[in-house]
C-alpha cells in the first residue's frame, strides 16, 4: 500500500563509518538506501505467489536492478571490514527516504560516496554446499538480508563476492527456466526439502480425501507413508487451495 505523506528518515546516528566522510549527512544515506533497495529487490524476487506463475517481466526487471546495484557496489571500491552497525541500521520494513535514490546519477556524483558494506555475499556462502532436489536449490536462511543489525561484516575477496552474487542470480534464472519462477523463492527461504515434493505431499493429503474423478492425479504414485504428512511444514491453507482446485477440476 502506498503510504501517504512519506516521512524522510533521519540517519543522524549512523556516521561511525571508517574512512573519510566529507561530513555530509547524505553520504551514508545513499549507501543505506541503496542497500535497502537491494534488500527490497531480493525480497520481491522471492515473494512469488505460490500458486500462480509470477510475472516474468517483473522478475527480469527486478533482477536487472539487483545486478545494476551489485555492479555499482563493486565499482565503488573494495569491500571493507566494518563492525556491526548500530541498531539504527535500516531494516527492510522501513522504507528509507525516496529522495536520493530517485535523483539522477549526476546529482549523486556530486556527493562523495564511501563504500562500506558487504553482507550480501555472506548469504550465498552457505548455499553453494547444499544439495538440491531436482532443479530447485534449497537455500540457507533469508534472514541475513533482513537483519542487517545482526550481520557480521566480513572481509572478503571481492572477486569471490562477485562470483557468489553472480552465481545466485544465475540460480534464480536457472530455476526460472527449469521449473518456474515459483522456485526463485526457494533460493532464499528456509525450507524443508519435502516441501517441494508437491507430488508426495499432495498424494499424502489426497489419501485422506475422496477423489474419484481427478484424472490428472492418477499419474501420481501411490501415497507414500505417513511420513510425508508429517514432513509437510508448508502452509496448509495453500495446500488446501490446491486440493480444492484439483478436486473440482
Amino acid at each position, binding site marked *: 500500500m502506498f503510504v501517504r505523506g512519506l516521512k524522510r528518515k533521519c540517519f543522524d546516528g549512523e556516521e561511525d563509518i571508517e574512512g573519510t566522510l566529507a561530513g555530509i549527512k547524505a553520504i551514508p544515506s545513499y549507501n543505506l538506501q541503496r542497500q535497502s533497495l537491494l534488500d527490497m529487490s531480493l525480497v520481491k524476487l522471492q515473494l512469488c505467489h505460490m500458486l500462480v506463475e509470477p510475472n*516474468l517481466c517483473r522478475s527480469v526487471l527486478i533482477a536487472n536492478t539487483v545486478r545494476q546495484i551489485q555492479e555499482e557496489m563493486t565499482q565503488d571500491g573494495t569491500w571493507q571490514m566494518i563492525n556491526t552497525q548500530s541498531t539504527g541500521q535500516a531494516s527492510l520494513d522501513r522504507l528509507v527516504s525516496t529522495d536520493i535514490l530517485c535523483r*539522477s546519477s549526476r546529482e549523486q556524483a556530486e556527493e562523495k560516496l564511501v563504500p562500506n558494506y558487504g553482507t550480501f555475499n555472506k548469504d550465498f556462502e552457505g548455499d553453494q554446499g547444499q544439495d538440491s532436489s531436482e532443479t530447485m536449490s534449497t537455500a540457507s536462511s533469508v534472514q541475513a538480508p533482513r537483519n542487517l543489525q545482526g550481520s557480521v561484516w566480513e572481509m572478503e575477496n571481492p572477486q569471490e563476492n562477485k562470483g557468489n552474487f553472480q552465481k545466485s542470480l544465475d540460480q534464480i534464472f536457472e530455476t526460472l527456466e527449469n521449473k518456474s519462477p515459483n522456485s526463485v523463492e526457494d533460493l532464499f527461504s528456509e525450507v524443508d526439502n519435502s516441501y517441494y515434493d508437491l507430488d508426495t505431499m499432495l498424494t499424502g493429503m489426497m489419501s485422506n480425501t475422496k477423489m474419484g474423478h481427478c484424472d490428472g492425479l492418477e499419474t501420481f504414485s501411490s501415497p507414500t507413508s505417513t511420513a510425508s504428512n508429517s514432513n509437510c511444514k508448508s502452509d496448509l491453507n495453500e495446500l488446501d487451495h490446491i486440493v480444492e482446485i484439483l478436486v473440482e477440476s
Partner: protein
Amino acid sequence: ADIISTVEFNYSGDLLATGDKGGRVVIFQREQENKSRPFSRGEYNVYSTFQSHEPEFDYLKSLEIEEKINKIRWLPQQNAAHFLLSTNDKTIKLWKISERDKRAEGYNLKDEDGRLRDPVRIKELRVPTLKPMDLMVEASPRRIFANAHTYHINSISVNSDYATYLSADDLRINLWHLEITNRSFNIVDIKPANMEELTEVITAAEFHPQQCNVFVYSSSKGTIRLCDMRSSALCDRHSKFFEEPEDPSSRSFFSEIISSISDVKFSHNGRYMMTRDYLSVKVWDLNMENRPVETYQVHEYLRSKLCSLYENDCIFDKFECCWNGLDSTIMTGSYNNFFRMFDRNTRRDTTLEASRESSKSRAILKPRKVCTGGKRKKDEISVDSLDFNKKILHTAWHPTENLIAVAATNNLYLFQDKVN
C-alpha cells in the same frame, strides 16, 4: 462485478467488448439513434455475456493458470455474426456471437414442447415454419488455440489479411491461421539458450494496420523492433530498431524499469506508432528509428516517488494507450482514476477523472490538475493524496466518433463529446 482487464471496440464501433479477471466477456451494443429522442445519442447496453476462460491447473508445473482475460481483439465483420479473439495467459479462443430471433415451429417428429411424437401417430407431414421470437444472443467457441505458449501471453493482433493473427508471450511470438488450431508458426524467439542470460522480455506486439507482412514488438528495455515476415521465416533479426538514447544525466536505478514499454499501438493511418512507458507516451515515425517525434509526459510528478512505487509494485503497472479515429489525439490512463488526453496538433493536454462523484450522467467532466509542489491551488490534488489503487490501465476510443471507454477497476465509464 470483477476487475476489468481489457476493453475493445469493434471495427464499426457498434460493439464494445470487455474482459475481466474472472474470465468473463461482456459485450455492449450501441442502441440505434432514435429520431424522437435526439439527445439519446446511442447508449450502450449489454448485448451478450459469456464465460470465455475458466481457471486451469497445470499439473506439470503445479501452478494455476489464471482465467483473467488479457486481451480481446475483434475480427472484421463478414456476415451477420460477430467474431472475436479472447486470450488468457495460455490459450486463445475464437468466439462467435450470433443472434437468433426466429425459431422453427411445426416439427414432425416432436411436439411443441419437445416431446417426441410416436411415429405411428403421424398421419401427415408438414413443413416447419419460422416464427419470430425474442432476440437471443448466443456466444459459442469456434476455435481453441492452445498449448503454444510456455510463457504468459501479453498480446494478440489480427492481421490485415483477416486470415492470420499473432500471439505474443514474454519470449516468443507465434503466427496462427484463424482456421487452424493444431499448428502455429514461431516467428520471434528471444529466449536465450541459457536462461541465466535473460535480461529482456517482449511486452507487446501488433501487426501493421495495412501491411500484412509487418509487425512490431516492444521490450522491457524500452526498445521496439519492426519485423518484416518476408525477409525470413524466423524474424529474430529486425528490419528496424527503435530506441531513444538514454539521457545519462537522468539515469537512476529505476531508469530501466520505467523505460519498459507496456503498450504499443499503430496509428490508424499506419505511419506512426505510439508506445507507453511508465511515465510517458511517445509517438514514433516509422521512418525514424533514433528517437520519437513526440513525447508526452503523463505523470512526471511521479518521478520523485519511484522508490515508493517500486516498493508497492505500482512501478510495474502496465498502462495501455490508444489513438482516436483521426490519429489527432492520444489517450492513456494514470492513477487516482485519472486519464489523460493529448491533442497532437494543438499540443494541449487534459486530465479527466473517471469516478462516480465527478461523472453524473450527462454532466460535463471537469478537468483535473495535480499539484506538484508549492502551494496547492483550490481544486488541485496533491501528489501525496493520489490513490494508487485506482488505476486506469485500459481505455479504448471509438473508431470514428469522439466516444471513449474507460475501465476503472471494476467499473466501465463511457464518455462522449458534448452534443452541440
